[in-house]
């Protein structure tokens, strides 16, 4: 999946936790998302298009939480400048 926007792609470290990690099949990876991918929601949609495992992991993006550089963010958050983005289910610590 690509968008119509021009501009260079950017490398981002992406980390997955709990069942998102299990479904994706890896704990972390470096990705190069097209420059047109501006938000967490758009990144999840783009990731879901990368194959069956990703489609399964991100089949219900509403339940998936995200962090940019270790801070919780909403799906609308812009990813520009992010060094590390993480996706995970709702937390169940304590």
């Amino acid at each position, binding site marked *: 999946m690509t968008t119509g926007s021009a501009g260079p792609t950017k490398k981002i470290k992406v*980390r997955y*936790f*709990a*069942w998102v*990690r299990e479904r994706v099949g890896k704990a972390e990876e470096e990705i190069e998302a097209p420059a047109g991918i501006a938000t967490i929601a758009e990144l999840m949609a783009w990731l879901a298009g990368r194959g069956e495992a990703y489609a399964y992991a991100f089949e219900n993006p509403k339940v998936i939480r995200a*962090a940019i550089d*270790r*801070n*919780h963010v909403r799906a609308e958050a812009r990813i520009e400048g992010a060094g590390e983005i*993480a996706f*995970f*289910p*709702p*937390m*169940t*610590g*304590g």
Partner: protein
Amino acid sequence: MSVHSRAGGGPVRAIIRLQREPIAIAAEVAKLVAARNDIGAVVTFTGICRADENGAPIAALNLEHYSGMAEAEIARHVEEAYARWPLLGALVTHRYGRIKPGEDIVLVATASSHRQAAFAAAEFLMDYLKTRAPFWKQVEAADGTTWVEAKSVDDAAAERWTAPPPRRGAAK
């Protein structure tokens, strides 16, 4: 990982520790009150691995966490507790890895001159640990593993703290 912050070289302000090892509760709490004489109240919360989850027996819990983010999240909430209540010490120790029934999972301890601040801060920290700190519990049972689902009642408990604290009484 362990964070000891001391305000102006004074007593321990916050101890945050994530570890695989069992929690030495008495030793941890002793650090909070060591060499102080202004603490009148210490509240502790210990979360323990039960032998069942939703009625079915379990073999263990596997605790996954986001190293680095977890410490930072907890430290932020400890500072928020300090901003809300007159605390004299706070401690959070959270285990990760495989934890068997009967073993401790988490210890929160808060110290204050008076009891109400200590109780409120401990509840506040636990509500946040349950809903915002990046830890995930997986249940290991005879028939396989399942991830524990977040509970709406935990979210509701954490929501309580989005309003200013209802009371800041001085009762010990």
